[in-house]
């Protein structure tokens, strides 16, 4: 499936929905959305990954970029990651820097 990405900002949360395959050839689209989200001074970012089939290190680099651009006060939630995407985040040592959730939890993310 081709890569697609979408940004929606509401309640101080930037929801970024990613689908398909996120690799070095498609990561720029994700990065642009992080840039747009950062400009809106949100309190948290939720990456909605239910339909993301695959993520290479190019995707991890955008998460590093998000953390460095938005600062440590902005929480980054990774929601619904498929097993290999979750494993890639964990082995790379990112699970301490993002919150992994099986499903979107408005009470937690939008508080």
């Amino acid at each position, binding site marked *: 499936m081709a890569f697609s990405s979408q940004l929606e900002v509401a309640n101080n949360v930037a929801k970024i929905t990613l689908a398909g*395959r996120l*690799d*070095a*050839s498609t990561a720029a689209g994700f990065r642009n959305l992080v840039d747009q989200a950062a400009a809106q001074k949100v309190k948290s970012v939720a990456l909605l990954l239910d339909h993301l089939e*695959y993520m*290479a*290190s*190019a995707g*991890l*680099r955008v*998460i*590093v970029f998000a*953390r*460095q651009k938005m*600062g*440590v006060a902005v929480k980054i939630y990774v929601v619904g990651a498929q*097993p*290999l995407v979750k494993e*890639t985040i964990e*082995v*790379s*040592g*990112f699970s*301490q*820097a993002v919150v992994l959730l099986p499903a979107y939890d408005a009470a937690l993310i939008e508080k």
Partner: protein
Amino acid sequence: MKTLALPGTLDALEPLGEFVRAAAAEAGFDAMAAGRLHLAVDEMATNSVTHAYEEQGREGQIYLEAEIDDNELRVALEDTGPAYDPTTRADPADLDRPLEERGIGGLGIFLARKNVDALLYERRGDRNRLTFVLHRRPASRT
């Protein structure tokens, strides 16, 4: 043995993924193992395109081979860039550091190594050749 030659650009990553996943499926690996192999080859092909070609201002191709025998699946990736052995590179030392303090280099080779049973480098003529090996365990045989 199956082979595929692709232009040395990032557009090659999608057909590369199809090629690697098809080889893994043919060797009887499940979707998770196929995805791990795809990730390993994708990371190294991205490095080839970026470092062997784009940063050098060169054009070239990347070459894939897949070979299955009773014991293992071997996928080879070749480029015609300057000799470079990524397997000698140490794992990133900052994996457990906060993201705001981390560098972004070295993750590709780290993930490549982590996701296959063996990763081998050799220089063959004018080509860098990386071989990704997955052992076919009894449970994964067709």
